[in-house]
């Protein structure tokens, strides 16, 4: 069993082990809730991505958030994403509310406000992200996710330093502009 401290250290080995530990449990849970088998990976990866960013970058809403049971935490995130997906895809609010109420206790619905808002806009955010060319995506991910300096990014991608700075600034401006229009 992977400890949360190993995950906070952000070692790929620990995360991979955690992935392998979570996957069968989350799969079993989703199947019992009626999730289609071909959608399980989507929900699981989304949930794991949320959890990863919570652990590595922290929760801006709860900076001192403690996670004692990582697997249970992931299961709850994935379940919330699955239920939110059901609510969003049902045309009748009352029907979807009844459906999700049957699937989970109200106490389990613990998606925080920020995450809920993020996922409410997820489809549009994904569209904005898809507008960026691959080079843009790579530079932004290396800067904001890998926390590389522009000099390191330039060395890794084989660009000139000024080119990286210009591209990062331009790509971020494009992304912000798209998000502002949501």
């Amino acid at each position, binding site marked *: 069993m992977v400890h949360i401290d190993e995950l906070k250290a952000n070692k790929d080995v620990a995360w991979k082990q955690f992935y392998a530990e979570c996957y069968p449990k989350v799969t079993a849970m989703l199947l019992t809730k009626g999730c289609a088998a071909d959608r399980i990976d989507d929900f699981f990866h989304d949930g794991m991505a949320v959890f990863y960013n919570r652990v590595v*970058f922290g929760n801006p809403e709860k*900076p001192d958030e403690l996670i004692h049971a990582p697997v249970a935490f992931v299961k709850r995130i994935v379940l919330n994403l699955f239920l939110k997906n059901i609510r969003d895809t049902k045309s009748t609010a009352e029907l979807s509310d009844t459906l999700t109420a049957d699937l989970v206790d109200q106490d389990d619905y613990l998606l925080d406000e920020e995450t809920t808002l993020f996922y409410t806009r997820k489809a549009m955010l994904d569209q904005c992200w898809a507008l960026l060319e691959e080079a843009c995506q790579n530079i932004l991910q290396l800067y904001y996710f890998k926390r590389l300096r522009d000099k390191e990014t330039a060395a890794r991608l084989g660009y000139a330093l000024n080119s990286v700075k210009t591209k990062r600034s331009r790509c971020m*401006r494009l992304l912000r502009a798209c998000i502002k229009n949501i």
Partner: protein
Amino acid sequence: MNTNDDNIELIDRYLEDKLTEEELTDFKQQLSDDADFRETVEAQRLAIAQIQHQAALKKMRQFGQELKAETPVHTLKPKIRRLPPLLKIAVAIALLLVAGLVIVIPIINNNNEIAEQPTDTIDNDKYGTDSKLDFNESLKVKQLQLTDDIASTISGDRTIRLSILFEQISQATYDFQTINNDLFLLINKETLDAENLTPVFIQIFDKDSSRLYLRLDEKFYQINEGEQRPLVVETDETILNVLEKQ
């Protein structure tokens, strides 16, 4: 407000909670005063969240692919157990014995049945001297046609009444009569003529008994239901004679 690179850097530091107290005070003041700035800060926050989410998603998908590639695919192979040579011989002998029994027992039974069957000609001592039908099978069907002369040939001293329910011609009563230990069936020929029916008697023999059926049109009626003693039907071209052996 002009969102130049310096401002974006400041926003990034604010979102990472890395502003000094003085910078933070100024920043919050700007947030409350400038709607465009607020919008830019929110857009930057969402953009970073999206970048991080997409990167984490990519990482998780990659883990999934790597784990699937690393996990050996177990194909279930049927377990084949090799029997010891002696056990193989024993099983073969047992199978041969079973096969032999399955084949031989029915043959023996069949021969016994053939031996028990009546001879080609009815034993006259058993069925009477007038019995002329041949029975060489264990189950036999005979169809006997009635003729116009039947009524005139029937007479006697004892009558057995047997009621048969006809679905087609309401209820009719038929008389059985014994004459010198012979049982005759009395048919009301006028009734049959009126309905334009031709009665056909069918006797089915099995090993220990026989059953007599009357067929009218396409209907069958069993007229000696429950009889234990075998009946013998004798006929020529003009008469139906049902014999009851005592």
